[in-house]
């Protein structure tokens, strides 16, 4: 993992639900390079948000190791830990809940600057706040400085959240469903702003979403990881994952999504699942946890052994026994 900024090695997170342990994230390994965009997709409860929180350092893993710039985050000194927490920032889903309604935009963005001593004096702080607002395309900034969050649209608020995150010069941003609550008509412009920032500042982004089309658009040059019941089932370059999905779960997901083209969407073949019931995390199926629903179920091997994520020569990684058997020759040997 040279030049990786965040690396997860066999990370698991267990929660207690009514005194029984459930694995929200199970044995996930992932390495994200500087300047890379990785999208995590999956249905609700698949562990994508928990993964994001562990990367941002707001939730410790139950087992496994997270590395920041090559160092185990549990072994960091006080100063190093502070640098890590500042370096990895999170943008939340709901811009109506994540900004203090009683503070002006100026106050909201100035607070971290002052707290961390990043600017000297009031004039410098005001200047920096203006710069940050311009950076997130909230122009002219003077129109917004003295406004309160309720006077802004959802899209503008989410831009303020982004500006606030940028105050501490992070190198990594975890964006958890960051555009799901803004109107479809302005999502793209928010993503364009994020892309621009990523390019200007060399940021890495972990973008968590349930929308595969959006993931493909945003991660264009990056990768998409698909999670199912806490495990990473497929990880591949974005366009490749959408255009030639390998894992049966990814294939089912993609086949289920309607297209904005009446003829194409009505002709589209939907892969049928063997069962519509999503297993409970409390009673996960044995072996591959997708096997009771999987259209490619092949009997014993799927029921017995948990498939590991195996890398192939085309850059994809898939956790599925039938796929791995089929592509035996393509496996990347380490």
């Amino acid at each position, binding site marked *: 993992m040279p030049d990786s900024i965040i690396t997860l090695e066999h990370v698991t997170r267990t929660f207690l639900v009514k005194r029984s342990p459930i694995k929200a994230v199970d044995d996930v390994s992932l390495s994200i390079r500087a300047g890379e965009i990785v999208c995590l997709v999956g*249905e*609700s409860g698949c562990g994508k948000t928990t993964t994001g929180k562990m990367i941002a350092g707001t939730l410790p893993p139950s087992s496994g190791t997270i590395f920041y710039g090559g160092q185990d985050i549990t072994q960091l000194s006080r100063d190093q830990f502070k640098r890590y927490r500042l370096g990895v920032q999170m943008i939340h889903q709901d811009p109506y809940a994540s900004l203090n309604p009683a503070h002006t935009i100026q106050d909201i963005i100035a607070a971290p600057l002052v707290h961390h001593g990043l600017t000297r004096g009031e004039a410098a702080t005001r200047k920096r706040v203006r710069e940050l607002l311009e950076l997130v395309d909230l122009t002219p900034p003077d129109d917004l400085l003295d406004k309160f969050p309720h006077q802004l*649209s959802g*899209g*503008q608020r989410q831009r303020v959240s982004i500006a606030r995150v940028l105050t501490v010069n992070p190198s990594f941003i975890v964006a958890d469903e960051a555009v799901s609550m803004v*109107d*479809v*008509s*302005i*999502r*793209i*412009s*928010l993503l*364009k702003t994020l892309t621009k920032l990523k390019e200007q500042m060399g940021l890495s982004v972990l973008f968590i979403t*349930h929308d*595969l*089309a*959006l993931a*493909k*658009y945003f991660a*264009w040059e990056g990768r998409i990881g698909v999670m199912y019941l806490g495990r990473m089932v497929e990880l591949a370059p974005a366009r490749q994952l*959408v255009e030639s999905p390998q894992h049966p779960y990814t294939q*089912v*997901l*993609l086949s*289920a*999504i*309607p*297209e*904005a*083209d*009446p*003829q*194409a*969407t*009505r002709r589209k073949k*939907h892969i049928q*699942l063997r069962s*519509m019931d*999503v297993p409970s995390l409390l009673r996960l199926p044995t072996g591959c946890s997708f096997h009771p629903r999987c259209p490619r179920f092949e009997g014993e091997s799927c029921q017995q052994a948990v498939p590991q994520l195996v890398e192939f020569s085309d850059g994809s990684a898939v956790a599925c026994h039938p796929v791995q058997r089929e592509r035996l020759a393509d496996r990347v040997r380490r």
Partner: protein
Amino acid sequence: MQPTLSVQNLSIEYRARRGQVQAIRNVTFDVQRGEAMALIGESGSGKTTLGLGVVRLLPSAATISQGSLVYRRFADGSGSPAREIDVLKLKTNQLREFRWQECAMVFQSALNALNPVLRISEQFADTARAHNYLRGRELEERCQHLLRLVRLDPERVWKSFPHELSGGMRQRVLIALSLLLEPQLLILDEPTTALDILTQRNIMDVLKELRTQLDFALIFISHDLSLAAELADRVATVYAGKIVEIADVETIFMAQTHPYTIGLINAVPTLVGAKEDLTSIPGSPPDLIDLPTGCKFHPRCPLAEARCREYEPELEEVSSGHQVACWNWRTARESIQAFEVE
């Protein structure tokens, strides 16, 4: 053949502290028998108000300031309506009959719409009792038939409480329940929002199947364009309380003419699409209390010119069944393409 629903010059206003909110402004459209019509647009465009207006379930701050709503019920296999109902003239108890028996609505917060302390069987029985519908054995058979139509196992669901069912199952129970009294018009407000992809697919398939089995027209409100592409026969784009474009689904997606519809479609990433094609619509929807002059879309429209700022265009028929409210409809598609290339 006469339509199931005719909406004529309907306007709906809300009283607010700052003034009158013009939520729906002079809207006219028909829904044909058995047809699926989608209302698309951004949040705050008035889609839900329009849906609520049709069943007259508007909050008390709202008034229907003008217009007419006519619903027609057809007997089996007949082309002319057996009954015509002027919805705006209905008295309270007539309204109670109209709702659900003629026109049912499934709300956006559908997952919370079931009574949490009643078993599914009791929710169906309550509805049947309130409307003097079937009872006993007959009722149970009808309900189980409906549950099977929405792909639920009656054995599993009938005696369950809502919390024992998943979101997708509850949504399907509600769709079955809404069809209990054989309405000929069903209004669905964001039927798949907040559901996971595979559950959404299931609901879409269930709705498609229901339409082949039962005789009802459908109005569904959605901000998800691909849902409209998949389910609708006709699509109406709503902006600032007005229908700005209405056409069959093919035309809306392949030859849309209003700059707002063009903008909406260009703003949504698709699985097959190329990256360069996408652009957001600049600005945000207008304040419905203090609407801009002229065409309400002009502050965000790349083609706006003097006349757009002064006069509001009305819907006009640009080809058979395709209506657009834009002064520049003749050239809008080409001009916007040229504009984007720049």
